[in-house]
């Protein structure tokens, strides 16, 4: 894993980077495109040394103390290396922020130093006006005419007391980004509905029902694809759509992109044919007319 990259551009910013387990496994393409996007924005990512899993749902759902300890170890490492911590995974982001909230409200004053770490989900950086302007200038390809549904899921925005989101019921950052890329973000009501998260393995039946609702809503809104910044949402939405196709035949099928994949595809000189290979639902059908 290249931990740093040389770049001769001006205004380099450095940030600690906590990829989390998914980005080293099932969401490799997210990790790859995050790194490409960071290069573009002039952000030098330094992977948090020896980071551990955030515990995700399983830790906080069954053992709150463990969830806190797992988060605090990562926050301590960040504090010692670089207190600007950039997190691409919704669950990792949420666990780190929730741990900070718990510590802030704790009666004892232990571990207060980790409150100095500024934890940001990647979406915050990516959809900030300065980043959007850089992307606009660097754009070589346009998603013109492509209708997309920006899907935020749960944990990037909720609850606002943890995430600091200003608009948890109707967030809009990703929609702005899609416009900058030339696409047409659709208005729809399922931007922040839950995909089922960690229920996907033990209760695939429930996850399928939730995914079906979300995908059908996107189709009703005229979308040709869904865009997310959460590795669980991406995996659940693509994998469970394939089940639904098998079960019901006529179920709609939409590719699910990581926002950074689209940024990378639109700003690189030519499309790499391998870029879309990790997708369970091949997006080349909707991208081919755009030359991507």
């Amino acid at each position: 894993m290249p931990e740093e990259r040389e770049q001769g551009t001006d205004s380099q910013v450095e940030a600690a980077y906590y990829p989390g387990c998914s980005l080293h496994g099932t969401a490799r393409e997210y990790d790859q495109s995050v790194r490409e996007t960071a290069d573009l924005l002039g952000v030098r990512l330094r992977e948090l040394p020896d980071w551990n899993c955030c515990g995700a749902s399983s830790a906080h759902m069954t053992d709150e103390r463990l969830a806190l300890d797992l988060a605090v170890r990562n926050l301590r490492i960040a504090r010692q290396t670089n207190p600007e911590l950039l997190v691409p995974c919704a669950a990792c982001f949420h666990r780190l922020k929730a741990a900070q909230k718990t510590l802030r409200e704790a009666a004892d004053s232990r571990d207060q130093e980790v409150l100095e770490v500024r934890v940001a989900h990647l979406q915050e950086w990516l959809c900030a006006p300065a980043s959007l302007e850089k992307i606009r200038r660097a754009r070589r390809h346009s998603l013109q005419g492509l209708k997309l549904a920006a899907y935020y899921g749960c944990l990037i925005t909720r609850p606002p007391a943890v995430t600091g989101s200003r608009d948890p019921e109707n967030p809009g950052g990703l929609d702005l980004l899609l416009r900058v890329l030339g696409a047409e973000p659709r208005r729809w009501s399922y931007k922040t509905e839950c995909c089922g998260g960690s229920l996907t393995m033990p209760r695939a039946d429930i996850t399928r029902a939730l995914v079906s609702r979300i995908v059908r809503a996107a189709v009703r809104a005229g979308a040709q694809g869904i865009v997310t910044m959460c590795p669980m949402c991406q995996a659940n939405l693509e994998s469970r759509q394939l089940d639904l196709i098998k079960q019901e035949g006529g179920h709609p099928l939409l590719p699910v992109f990581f926002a950074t994949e689209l940024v990378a595809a639109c700003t690189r000189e030519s499309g790499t044919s391998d870029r879309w290979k990790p997708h369970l639902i091949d997006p080349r059908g909707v991208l081919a007319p755009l030359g991507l």
Partner: protein
Amino acid sequence: MEAEAGNWISPAGTELLRELQAAGVEATACYQCGRCSAGCPLAEFFDLKPMQVVRLCCYGQEARALDSHTIWLCASCETCTTRCPNGIDIARLMDVLRGRALRERGLAREAGIKAFHKSFLNSIRRHGRVFEVGMIAGYKLRSGDLFGDTGLGLQMLKRGKLSLLPTRIKGTRAVRGMFRRPQKQRG
């Protein structure tokens, strides 16, 4: 359950309320408006609505709450917490109840979900990070669901989405230590 019949605020119940309060959850602030339950994306699969679980906690009817499918099927999407007009952190309340169900009664109405959490946490204990293939194998053995999602697993392997070898972090020992600490309180 018999011990709790006719005794609305049982001693066990007050202890539960204390634990909830320590976690920043004011269950007694609930006036049963139903907003949590109307907006919950999982409610149709629940045996108790979120508002019923909150009420049972206030009434000291803890056993009924701990014995529900609801506390396991809750996906922690935080919609209820976000919308509660009285600021009750209902998703956190579910966390507290799940913890108590496991710790005090060894109870989990959804065996598959418990098996999943256990496999996930075991992977962290072993490697410091989640090793997906090992976690999935552990889950399959624990749950007995040997053949579910086989096709999906093969698709993911083909697309390079699954590593066949775990990464073990240097701090594995520190992470293991976290699993040995008493669960209930910090310190």
